[in-house]
């Protein structure tokens, strides 16, 4: 699309991004909880890895995986957009169709704002605490370390772009389910456990049983956390990293196409619910 054609969607993104950056109190509260959970997980995995086990990941890689995962937690699309849920409940969602915008792209732009502003707010204090404060206090072993090299850092940045694209595609599909079912409760119940387990937030995906690995690697949730986290620590490097990033991109494309198809159906039904 040309920049003139993009203007409304960019404006929607910018406005929502700026608005979300104002929720600093929520970010601080979330930061506290995430530190607490992160610390527990670090201790559990340290205890687990100190025994005589053949682990697919070193303690160093695991700790980075945990802290960076906590920093990027709000990337996970595990619940529907509260604002949209409010619009659906109040019926104001009709106004969304009164805008001269293609509704899927409009909502996708809003989802991108949420998947950039909120993680930005949450990850900065987390990275400062675990990557700067802990090492300066002499606890470098338990903190977040820098990526092993420039290539890991670059590929991590690239992977992060696709996390945003993929998470926003997921989120827009959730939005459409909220519109179709007129409530956000159903999608939240289904989505939260899927996102937490399959993204690697609960247990790093490489630590799941071997026979599950082909399945785990190829499902879309892996691209939300597992891929960027392992690329960052160098656990995935070279062609393996590029392949994982390509998978993220592919899933983003598939989910956007699915979302668009769903939008056509759901929004037609939204029409019939008027009155």
């Amino acid at each position, binding site marked *: 699309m040309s920049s*003139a054609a993009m*203007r*409304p969607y*960019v*404006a*929607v993104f910018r*406005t929502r991004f700026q*608005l979300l950056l104002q929720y600093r109190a929520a970010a601080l509260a979330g930061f506290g909880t995430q530190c607490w959970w992160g610390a527990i997980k670090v201790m559990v995995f340290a205890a687990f890895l100190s025994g005589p086990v053949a682990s697919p990941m070193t303690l160093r890689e695991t700790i980075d995986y945990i802290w960076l995962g906590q920093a990027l937690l709000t990337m996970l699309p595990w619940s529907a957009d509260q604002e949209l849920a409010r619009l659906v409940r*109040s*019926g*104001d969602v*009709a*106004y969304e*169709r*009164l*805008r*001269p*915008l*293609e509704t899927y792209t409009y909502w996708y732009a809003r989802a991108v704002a949420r998947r950039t502003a909120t993680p930005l707010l949450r990850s900065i204090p987390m990275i400062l605490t675990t990557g700067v404060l802990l090492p300066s206090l002499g606890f470098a072993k338990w903190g977040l370390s820098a990526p092993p090299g420039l290539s890991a850092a670059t590929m991590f940045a690239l992977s992060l772009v696709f996390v945003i694209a993929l998470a926003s595609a997921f989120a827009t599909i959730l939005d459409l389910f909220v519109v179709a079912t007129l409530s956000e409760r159903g999608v939240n119940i289904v989505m939260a456990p899927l996102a937490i387990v399959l993204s690697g937030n609960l247990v790093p995906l490489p630590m799941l049983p071997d026979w599950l690995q082909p399945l785990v690697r190829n499902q879309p949730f892996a691209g939300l956390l597992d891929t960027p986290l392992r690329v960052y620590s160098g656990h995935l490097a070279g062609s393996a990293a590029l392949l994982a990033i390509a998978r993220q991109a592919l899933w983003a494309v598939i989910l956007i196409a699915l979302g668009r198809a769903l939008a056509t159906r759901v929004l*037609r039904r939204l*029409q*019939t619910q*008027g*009155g």
Partner: protein
Amino acid sequence: MPEPMIVVDSLTKAFRVAERRAGAWNALAGLVRRRYRRVDAIKDVSFTLAEGELLGLIGPNGAGKSTTIKILCGILEPTSGRCEVNGLVPWRDRVRHVARIGAVFGQRTQLWWDLPVIESFDLLRDIYRVAPERYRATRDELTARLDLSSLLDTPVRQLSLGQRMRCEIAASLLHEPRVLFLDEPTIGLDAVAKLAVRDFVKTLNATRGVTVILTTHDMHDIEALTHRVIVIGKGSVLADGSLEALRRGALGERRLWVHFAGEPTTIDVPGTTVRRRQGRSIELAFDPRTTSAHRLIARVAAEFDVEDVHLEEPPIEEVIARFYAQHAVDT
């Protein structure tokens, strides 16, 4: 004759409503096999509207006013019938169509709840792709005419209903639409805010030639604003014409209040009926087509010891209520 701005021809919208019957057994059966009932929200609605007209759409709750407006706005697709606004079929050409209309739904908000009003306006500027200079001029004019300058920096959630409604109306006009849909714009407003809204809409229609369709339950809106009224009941057009014609058809009587100097006596004037007695006053109803007002007054003054008289028309609410009753419309 120029092409009409809005053409509505035999428009019908049917909804499928799942039937639920009482009882646990029926609830279980409903899981397996649902029964649906067809409900016609509107049926065979037809009218045309010329550019620059101001139409009042009235009818009891559930009559089909909002359904009609939603179809005209392009957010609802009718089951059958034809409809064109400004040469476009609203639901088929939604994006192009909605760029050229404005709409205010009184019970909803189109402003972003957490944003200051001005930021909502700026966002609408980009959504409607309005050129910056043009936008500034329109925004400043609307700000002046709706008296918004002190509200622009306030987040929408902190506005009173009257303030918000003024902002909603401004928001619907930033892209200078040729057609404006107002669905209950005065609902819940106090007297001053209602007057402000009416005054603004009237001026907008008169000076800018913006075509307006207004739905309301407040008959004073209709009296103050519209020359033409369409009454919808049970999904069909029951009447289409001036308020005066509606009045004549439904409740054409006039009323004469007679205030007696002394105790009121029984009063029996041919062609009149006694509607009410109140203290020393009696209200007579008569049909102006058969009984002339000045002869009636002369006769009453001659026959009785009268201190004062005055003439009244039935209030518009009563006319409409009578009209609904005549057409057996449930309210």
